[in-house]
């Protein structure tokens, strides 16, 4: 690989790469992000290679394994350029048909996206899931093979760096500050102001850090960005380092993200070969290199001071931050930490200008945000939307609403430290300050949709359990307070809730919020306090009436076979794993409540035409029918 000695060299290289590539040459791109990988994208890619060879098309067709496209619900995703034909849920056995039909200029109808009305959608960009998004940060993923730096350069990669290296650092800082880029990791602190603090902090040695310790359950935005487009993060980091005056960077990435670790290593290696990292980058005289540090699986290490402690080689524990890490971070040296998405946004701001960036979004929150839209929603996946879009638009226009015609109940944003936002507040725009106002937060971008079958006490319990395990245990309010709150939630869920429990949860929650050392503790009560705020009646039903309205809390529900509806088909009896169902041919089936483990299999398997099994909560069980009671056959089924 040639060493790039100037911005002109980079541009020359880009022209060379483009000259070798025919934009009209067909290219099969196979999403190889983590989601599609789990669906078997590697086998799909191999099948394409084999089939293309079999047809002798090696010279005529390119194959590219790209990063995550976002529509993870429908993986493996295959997009055929230049037409941008998008096939979903592709299996290896579909490949011969795709190749032969494509050669004939035809489409494989069954693999196209179908909207609710039976209308087929051919092009990726026209699928409603993508149509309502603005994928400025995440969109490049689908064109780039993350293991090939030339793909990134061909799309103008590193041109922002080339521009910056010949600007005064003050100018770059001014641009980032003017863009009002707020931290995408959760806090929403303006990146420009943070950079300035580190830049102005006394000391020769300064550090820049990528926080890729993404740990929120169900969230994988940073993962997919690092896996799919590592160079965009790296370019942002080098720009930041130049602006701040740092010559050493760290990328703190979770060990649990093997593909991200692998692609990062390849990216760093390739960048070094082109001398986009190292000494005298692009002939500017600026030196900078990066070290990858793999995290050991502690959620709390995503907190900036804990992450820096871990980088020093000690246990990842937060410390009080009255002196900011921007001034005294790793080894007491000024250290600037930003999230993956924040860094990846920087090159876009440099290339397109702060005015372009501030034209997107709301007054206080500019640009776009990537969310991982998961839970009870039709289209799960990664979505990137402009700030200011309402939650309703995300859940219903992009997410396609709730599956099986169920009713929407709430959406949880901000990961385990966020809150649940109810239906009445669905018009809340995505905005750092607006989400905080309604008792939740932007967080790093987790968005979990919940339907009517979700119990809010159970949700609060789930997140608190996560936090109790992930608290580092250093400070008393977080360690002991969360534990005591969890104990109260457990007893409410078990039907042993007492009058005053809600008030006690609020009381402890407020102290944990006000007195904890780091953001893990100060935000930990959010899932409890927000669900109490919006779903207090549900807590009361658990405590006063021993009833779980959503039918989730096992100790508060019972499965019951309605004798007048039971047709003695034996299906539930045979499927019950606990052998808790008695009855027989022509005899009404009954559940032995002492043996029942409440797994719900009987309800699932009871044929809808009988609909005999019900879930009861908060009411006394009807007297069981005496053994040997014969069934009443439904009319029309009698001989």
């Amino acid at each position, binding site marked *: 690989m040639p060493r790039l000695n100037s911005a002109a060299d980079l541009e020359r290289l880009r022209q060379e790469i483009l000259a070798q590539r025919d934009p009209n040459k067909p290219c099969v791109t196979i999403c190889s992000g983590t989601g599609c990988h789990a669906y078997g994208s590697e086998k799909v890619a191999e099948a394409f290679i084999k089939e293309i060879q079999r047809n002798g098309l090696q010279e005529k067709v390119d194959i590219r394994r790209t990063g995550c496209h976002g529509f993870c619900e429908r993986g493996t995703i295959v997009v055929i350029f230049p037409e941008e034909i998008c096939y979903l849920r592709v299996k290896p056995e579909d490949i011969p048909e795709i190749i032969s039909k494509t050669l004939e200029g035809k489409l494989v109808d069954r693999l196209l996206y179908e909207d609710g009305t039976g209308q087929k959608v051919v092009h990726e960009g026209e699928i409603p899931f993508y149509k309502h998004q603005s994928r400025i940060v995440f969109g490049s993923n689908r064109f780039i093979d993350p293991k090939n730096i030339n793909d990134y350069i061909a799309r103008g990669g590193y041109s922002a760096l080339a521009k910056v290296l010949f600007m005064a650092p003050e100018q770059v800082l001014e641009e980032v500050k003017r863009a009002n880029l707020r931290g995408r990791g959760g806090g929403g602190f303006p990146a420009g102001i943070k950079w300035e603090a580190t830049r102005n902090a006394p000391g020769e040695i300064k550090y820049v850090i990528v926080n890729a310790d993404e740990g929120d359950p169900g969230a994988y935005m940073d993962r997919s960005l690092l896996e799919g487009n590592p160079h965009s993060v790296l370019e942002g980091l080098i720009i930041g380092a130049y602006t701040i005056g740092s010559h050493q960077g760290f990328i703190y990435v979770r060990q649990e993200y093997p593909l991200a670790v692998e692609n990062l290593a390849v990216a760093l290696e390739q960048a070094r070969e082109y001398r986009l990292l190292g000494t005298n980058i692009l002939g500017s005289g600026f030196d900078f290199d990066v070290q990858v540090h793999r995290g050991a699986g502690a959620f709390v290490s995503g907190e900036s001071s804990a992450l820096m402690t871990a980088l020093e080689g000690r246990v990842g524990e937060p*410390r*009080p931050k*009255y002196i900011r890490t921007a001034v005294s971070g790793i080894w007491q040296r000024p250290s600037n930490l930003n999230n993956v998405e924040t860094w990846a946004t920087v090159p876009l701001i440099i290339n397109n200008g702060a005015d372009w960036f501030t034209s997107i979004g709301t007054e206080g929150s500019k640009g776009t945000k990537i969310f991982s839209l998961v839970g009870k929603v039709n289209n799960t996946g990664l979505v990137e939307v402009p700030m200011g879009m309402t939650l309703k638009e995300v859940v219903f226009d992009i997410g396609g609403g709730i599956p099986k015609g169920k009713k929407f109940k709430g959406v949880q944003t901000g990961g385990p430290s966020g809150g649940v936002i109810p239906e009445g507040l669905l018009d809340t725009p995505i905005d750092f300050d607006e989400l905080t106002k309604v008792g939740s937060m932007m967080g790093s971008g987790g968005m979990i949709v919940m339907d009517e079958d979700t119990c809010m006490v159970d949700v609060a319990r789930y997140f608190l359990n996560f936090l109790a395990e992930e608290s580092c245990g250093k400070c*008393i*309010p977080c*360690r002991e*307070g969360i534990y005591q709150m969890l104990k109260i939630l457990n007893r409410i869920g078990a039907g042993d809730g007492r009058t005053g429990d809600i008030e006690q949860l609020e009381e402890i929650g407020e*102290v944990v919020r*006000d*007195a904890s050392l780091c953001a893990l503790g100060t935000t930990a009560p959010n899932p409890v306090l927000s669900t109490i705020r919006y779903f207090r009646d549900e807590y009361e039903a658990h405590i006063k009436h021993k009833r779980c309205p959503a039918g989730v809390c096992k100790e508060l529900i019972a499965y019951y076979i309605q004798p007048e509806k039971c047709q003695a088909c034996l299906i539930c009896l045979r499927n019950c794993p606990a052998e808790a169902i008695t009855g027989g041919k022509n005899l009404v089936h009954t559940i032995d409540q002492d043996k029942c483990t409440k797994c719900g299999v009987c309800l699932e398997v009871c044929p809808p035409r009988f609909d005999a099994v019900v879930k009861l909560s908060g009411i006394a069980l009807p007297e069981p029918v005496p053994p040997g009671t014969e069934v009443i056959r439904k009319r029309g089924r009698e001989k």
Partner: protein
Amino acid sequence: MSDIALTINDTEVKAKEGMTILEAAQSASINIPTLCHHEKLIPYGACRLCTVEIIRDRRSRLVTSCVYTVEDGLIVKTESEPVVKIRKMLLELIWAIAPGAQSIREYATKYGINRTKFEIEPTFCILCGRCVRYCAEIKKKNAIGFIGRGIERRVMFFPDIAAEECPKCGECFPLCPTGVLPSNYAIAQMPYFTWEGKKYFI
């Protein structure tokens, strides 16, 4: 070192630059409760009992006085309503894990607490880290450390180092605010074999 003037509980207090609020208060004989702070050790900020309210630019904020450094013109309230609310809750939480400890009893009495609403589940250790930090910072031996995370966190003597160092030292024992440390140490006396003058642990 310039003098800094701040107000603590309506009293004007002079402090040196770099001092923490807690140190400034102590120098003026104003008592702020704390369980994890020790003058010889680097401020740690774990027990949160020393939380105080500060007013700066007419905005009120709760901060940890053992780590927050003094600023000119700072107004500090060490016993305001939100502060007392936090201390009461913390003392009840600590009571549940270290019932009977003298230091905790004394603070509890001061804040009018004579019981805890939480179930008593004693470990007798509040994980203030005084012993761990003393051994690491002053003695530089690391014979004792933390293990586990969150509610599983414990203080543990590392037998191979402790067997060598602790019998001749024991300086951390009196630092323990609950007095559990010596018994913790006794439990940690792991059996070992001696072979040719060297100790081997099983």
